[in-house]
């Protein structure tokens, strides 16, 4: 499955980076380099998609 990243860059020196189609811990790895290049990460929020995969992994022993 392809991985999709959406980056929204505002005019006040801020950006939001979101990643779709990658659930669980791997999603943070996907955007790490982009976040680092852009600057300082001030907040990092995991959505229900993230935890959905975490739950699946726990159930399957991954």
């Amino acid at each position, binding site marked *: 499955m392809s*991985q999709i990243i*959406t980056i929204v860059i505002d005019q006040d020196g*801020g*950006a939001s*980076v*979101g990643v779709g189609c990658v659930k669980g811990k791997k999603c943070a790895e996907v*955007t790490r380099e982009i976040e680092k*290049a*852009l*600057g300082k990460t001030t907040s990092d929020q995991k959505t229900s998609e993230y935890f959905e995969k975490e739950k699946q992994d726990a159930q399957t022993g991954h």
Partner: protein
Amino acid sequence: MDSLRQKGTVETMSHIAKIEIEIHDLSALKTTAAALGLEVIEGQTTFKYYGAQRGICAHALRIKGQVGGNEIGIVGRTDGGRGFTLAWDPYAGGGGLVEKVGANCTKLKQGYAVEVATRAAQRSGFRVVGRTVRQDGKVELKLQR
């Protein structure tokens, strides 16, 4: 976060990070500056602002070919962080600089962020599949691999 939620895309995201943009990449800044009609003078250690006053910097930005005009100082951070801050005097249009870089250097900083994000994404194997400017002036990049 709010930016992504506005588009209604947050439901499909598994992870959303909010980032404060910092200027680390001089090469990306040069590319952005050129697109706005500016040029980076590498190694120029003072920049000219109001009147004939000069500030200290690591490199300087000026309107392309405009020798003797107001400049923007690219100043090494003094707070221990990596990269640079921008110093300039936008008074009365800053000698034409405000028109080029926007108030508070918004156009320059936003353009830099787009450039640096695109480069970082390409290094990670992504390609840009969409780039739009929203009505609120925010730029949205869509990347895929």
